Each structure stands twice: as structure tokens, then as C-alpha cells.
């Protein structure tokens, strides 16, 4: 899923870089409110956890493999702004430490794997929160569904961006359907991991969740 260098034309690359610099610097300001002193280890741990989780590749249909993104999990537990900041750090460090994802494609990767899934996940989670039950099981299930939706949503954004300014001319419809259908499968894995992690946090440390969930709803 990490886009390497040279995969997109310059206008998309520059546009995504400008967008992500703007969003991430605003997120850095917003997260100062979200991050109390006690939440600082949470941000560091969340980054490390997402970093670890993204290294788990699992096979998807037709010989391709996918990995988890963790954006919805971070958004549900930390709030979308801090989540954006944490995952941007993860993506930058992956590019610098493992050469995973291109350095010039960092803006695109931040848009696709931090901003879009984080905010889509947080929005779905809070929308479902209005109609669902406020039990622990209900919250974990809502986080899982939000994660499931967030992955194909970001795949769809990739397809639109690639059809608009990818390195190669591809027609949108087949690309969109291929990307979205593969990523629904990845999204199922993402949803299961997100729901079980949220359930474990609710069972053991509900204090962490309450703070994060309130922010996600705000």
C-alpha cells in the first residue's frame, strides 16, 4: 500500500505534499489540546503499535498482500488530529528507516493512510455512536465497522488520484473496482484487529478509551 517514488505525476505529488504539510501542522497545533501529559506515552505507543502492525503482511486474493493501517484505531483512541500526527510520523520514519514508501511520495502516503482513513474512521465511529448502544461491546463493534469502511475509502481515493495524475493512463472504473474489492478484504482484517484491540482497551483500561472516544465525538 505504501506508494513509492515516481508512481504519481508531479502535480499530484506536490498537491498531496502541500495538503499534508498543512493538515499535519494544523494537527500538531490541535493535538496540543488533545494530548495531556498523561497521553504523551499513548501517542508514542500508538505510533510504535501502528508501526509494528503495518509490518504484518497477510495474503489477500490473487497473490497480492496487504497490511493493516491502524488509522481508525488511532483516531478512536486518540482523536483524529493526534492520530493524523502519529501516523504521519510512522510513515515518515518508515520511508527513512526502511525505504518503505518513497520520500517524495510521503505527502501522498500521509493523505492516503493517515488523513483519509483517520477522519473517515472517526466520522463513521461517531455517526454510529448516535444510534448504537453505549455498551463496551457496542463501542468495540462500532470501531471495527469504522475501520472496515475506512480502508476501501482510502483505496477509492487512491484510484481517483491515480486515474487523475498517475504515472500511467488507466481508466477509472476497472481500477476503482479492483482497488476497492481487494481493500474490502483488507478492511475485514483491519476491522477485526481494531475491534479486538478496542475491546481489550475497554476491558482493561476504560479510562484511556473514554478520553479518546469523547474526542472522536467532539
Amino acid at each position: 500500500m505504501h506508494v513509492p517514488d515516481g508512481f504519481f505525476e508531479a502535480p499530484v505529488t506536490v498537491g498531496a505534499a502541500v495538503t499534508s504539510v498543512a493538515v499535519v501542522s494544523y494537527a500538531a497545533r490541535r493535538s496540543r489540546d488533545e494530548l495531556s501529559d498523561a497521553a504523551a506515552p499513548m501517542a508514542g505507543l500508538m505510533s510504535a503499535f501502528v508501526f509494528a502492525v503495518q509490518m504484518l503482511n497477510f495474503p489477500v486474493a490473487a497473490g497480492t498482500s496487504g497490511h493493516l493501517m491502524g488509522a481508525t484505531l488511532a483516531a478512536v483512541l486518540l482523536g483524529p488530529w493526534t492520530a493524523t500526527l502519529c501516523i504521519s510520523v510512522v510513515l515518515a520514519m518508515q520511508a527513512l528507516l526502511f525505504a518503505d514508501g518513497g520520500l517524495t511520495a510521503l505527502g501522498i502516503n500521509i493523505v492516503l493512510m493517515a488523513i483519509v482513513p483517520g477522519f473517515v474512521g472517526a466520522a463513521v465511529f461517531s455517526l454510529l455512536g448516535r444510534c448504537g448502544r453505549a455498551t463496551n461491546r457496542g463501542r468495540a463493534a462500532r470501531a471495527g465497522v469504522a475501520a472496515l469502511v475506512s480502508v476501501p475509502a482510502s483505496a477509492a481515493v487512491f484510484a481517483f488520484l491515480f486515474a487523475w495524475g498517475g504515472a500511467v493512463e488507466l481508466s477509472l472504473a476497472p481500477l476503482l473496482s479492483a482497488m476497492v474489492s481487494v481493500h474490502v478484504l483488507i478492511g475485514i482484517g483491519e476491522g477485526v484487529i481494531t475491534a479486538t484491540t478496542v475491546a481489550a482497551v475497554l476491558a482493561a483500561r476504560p479510562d484511556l478509551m473514554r478520553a479518546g472516544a469523547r474526542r472522536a465525538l467532539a
Partner: protein
Amino acid sequence: MGANHASLGFDGAGSLLVDVAPAVKVATAVAVVASVALVPADAPWVLVFHGVVVLVGLRTAQVSLRSIGRRARIVAPFVVGAALLPFLASGERVDIVGLSVSRPGLAAAIVVIGKVLVGFTAGAALVMTTEPVDIVRGLQQLRVPRTFTTIAGLMLRFADVLRGESSRMQIARIARGDDPRSIAQVRATARTAGVLFVRGYERGERVHQSMIARGWSGAMPDTSKRSVPIEDWFRVGSWGAVAVFITAFGWMTVG
């Protein structure tokens, strides 16, 4: 933990690059990778120059090309994806050894694969010859915002906590009779991800408390006060300048 404390990708024993100031290595890698990525699509031959410069540079610095090759499986999905482009892309068709492929698709595939491989090689050389903590220090020296380097530093510290916790949990599972080869392992891994998170958080909390006890004030202390030796900029940074020049030359011939 222990011997490989926070040395996620370090594998540069014997390379001359190990002793170069991290700020110079980070800046050079960014310059080379960005230059390669910005090669004009109409002048793919420029990539050959970049490839030669990167290979000669790594040879001079005695970086093991074999280790870089082993790491290259990270980019394999994209190389395979790009190799499919000639078959999927639209436009004029040409016949190559009996296969009908798209001419623009083929040209794009060559450029994309070339850029991915050359860019990856330059990035991998940085990763292999620089400890992760030093990369964060290099970013500090290059005046990257504090918020960013602080989260990155904490992330590296907690990555180690998580790795320790997860190996302890795996040993515990095996001790209780779990068979790591069975398919049930997938389910166990999925279920323990949540537990790993909580356990990691609770250890992370203790790490954080001891950091506060030692005077943590909300940001990583800047331990990169040592100035960057100017000869490092000449010895290593100049390779980055060459890469920038090659791409600029490529754009001049196109435009």
C-alpha cells in the same frame, strides 16, 4: 532487546558511511531520492546516469549491495504491479515476442521500475548505515520541528517495549501448548493484538514515569549539539549535489 536494542534496519558493518554525520546522510539520501523521482518521464536515459552514480557511490563507501538486494522485497509488490502496466494500460499496441502490449504502458513501466529501484537503493543505504536513533538526531540537526522528532524518538523507544512484550507473550503461548504452525495462530495473533496494546501501554506508562523522574520536560532533549563536520558535506553531500545536477540536466535536454 539487548544486543539489537532499537537497531531496526542497521546492517552496515564495514561501510565507510557508518561514521558520517547522520544529518549529512539524511540530507544526501533525500536529495538523491527526490532527484530520481523528479526525472522527466520523456528522458528515461537520465535514470541510467542516476543508477551508475548511486552504484559507484555505494561501491566507494563499501556498502554491501547484496544486503540491499535482500531488502528489496519491500518494493517487490510495486515492481510486479508496474510490470503489469503494459498489459493493462490503454493506447497504441505493439507486439513484443508475440505479446500485444501497450506502448505508453511499456514506457511507463520501465520508468516506474527504474525510479523505484534506484530510489530504494539510495534510501536503503541510509537505513543500513545509520542507527534509528541517529536518524532522529540527524533530523534534529536539520531543524525538523520538535513535535515531530519527539514523537519519532518516543516511537523508537516504545517499538522496543512492544517487541519485548510480544516475544514474552509468544513464549507464554508456546509454553501453554500453542502450536505456532497451525492456522489457529492467526486467530491467537489477532486476539493478542489487543492485549499486546494494553500491556505495551502499561509498560510504556512506567517508562514515561521514569522519564519524568529523570527530568523529562515534554520534549526530547537535543543531544545533537555536536556540529556537523564540513568535510562530511564534501565527501558525502557532494553525491547528492551530483544527483540534483543530473536531474536538472535531464530537464534542460527535454525542455
